[in-house]
């Protein structure tokens, strides 16, 4: 594994929640140019309002993911099977979370317009 001098970890948990037509720029798009240096993290707690279900993920190079998985299995244990099934990857979770983000964002945007638009 190549060992870069700097590793950039981007917490993009709120990447879906942008308003006013702004578009999120993800560091994952540059991962191909800078392999082994970019790690992008996400969470179902924010994106899918699954707070308490303890489900998150990281996107990184395969070597780095393998190393993190080896470390994680001995440190923080793994996500429960229930959370994994209910999350965006589970058979039921796919149906459950479909449209959740868009619905939340629409409500949040309306609240935002009401409170801050002047």
């Amino acid at each position, binding site marked *: 594994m190549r060992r870069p*001098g*700097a590793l950039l970890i981007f917490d993009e948990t709120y990447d879906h929640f942008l308003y006013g037509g702004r578009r999120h720029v993800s560091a994952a798009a540059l991962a191909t140019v800078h392999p082994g240096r970019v790690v*992008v993290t*996400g969470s179902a707690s924010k994106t899918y309002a699954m707070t308490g279900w303890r*489900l998150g993920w*990281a*996107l990184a190079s395969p070597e780095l993911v393998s190393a993190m998985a080896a470390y994680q299995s001995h440190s923080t244990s793994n996500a429960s099977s229930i959370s994994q099934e209910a999350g965006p990857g*589970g058979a*039921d979770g796919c149906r459950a979370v479909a449209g959740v983000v868009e619905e939340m964002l629409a409500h949040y945007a309306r609240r935002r317009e009401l409170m801050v638009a002047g």
Partner: protein
Amino acid sequence: MLALAVNLGMPQFRVHPVGSAPLLFGVPGEDLRLRWARAFTRAPVALMNMSRRTSTSGHPLGLLAGDLFWTMDRPRPFLSTTSSGRRFCSRSCRRFRLISRVDGPASLRGRGSLRPVGRPVRLSVAPRSDDVRLRRMDRDQVVLVLAGRKSLRAFGGSPGWEKVTAPRLSRASRNLAPSADRASPVPPPPLAAAGVDVVDFGWETDFPTRIRPGGGHPADRGGVTRTPTRRQPALRDAIAGSNGASRGAGCARQNVLVTRARSRRSSTCATPVETKETRWRCSPPIGSRSRRSCGSAARPPHRPKPTSAPAGSRPPPPSTGRDGPERARHRQFPSNPSGAVIESDELARILDWCDARERS
């Protein structure tokens, strides 16, 4: 019809009726107080935040409603120290002066020259306690104690109060009718189902309704173990697919690590992580935010900062030296909740800087 439902979800959030004016305790944050109070502008509502521990705005008392303003001239009782040694009252509190009920913005004549109109409000502060009560107040009209002059101006106050910093208020909220949620005992969901235009600020995605079945089925099957992430290819494929599509990056299963996202400090992290000479600031809005350290080793000696870069050019990477393991160094840039958004060019510059640093 516009219904405004308020549910901040705070455990200390309570509503205490005083006459016809409920007091909302524990509403955190000055901006929230102002906005919410503004939403209730013509309603008999007073907002208070008297907690010494949560008084983040530095104002010991904040009540507002309509055109009535109250404040105090004796901040001394509030200049106490909490058990943790934190001063409760900030300097801004000393700007306040006692006024009585003001019947309109025209009565505000500037700091220190306010003339009382009507009966005063007497505050009782219990020693060593956060309990503050209004002993006397009008039952029909709501008391307002607002900290900032700018806020007062936003509420139609005198220009003489405009120097105190306060959050910007929504002018749109001025047009809101008195709290419809208090007028209607019906919760927001039935109102919405009945066709009422409800802006429910207490609304969240009802994840139990949507997500619970997804988790319930494996539970019924007895799958209640902590499955190693590598044995969940479907989840990793889904995450890779959704993230790859939304982020414009090609991701595969082997690029995804699933975790229960438990926050934990590593005991294997070695030595100091950040020093002054290694702190690097990029162009706004990116900036070094905080310093973190792990481990118990002492910090390396201080070194002078590198010379600043010429105007208009990107600051050069600092000379990090060899006084600590490279892998232990840590930077933290503002994340999205802070309001900072990294643009694509800034992102590329960060990565280029890392490449240049590695080559050097």
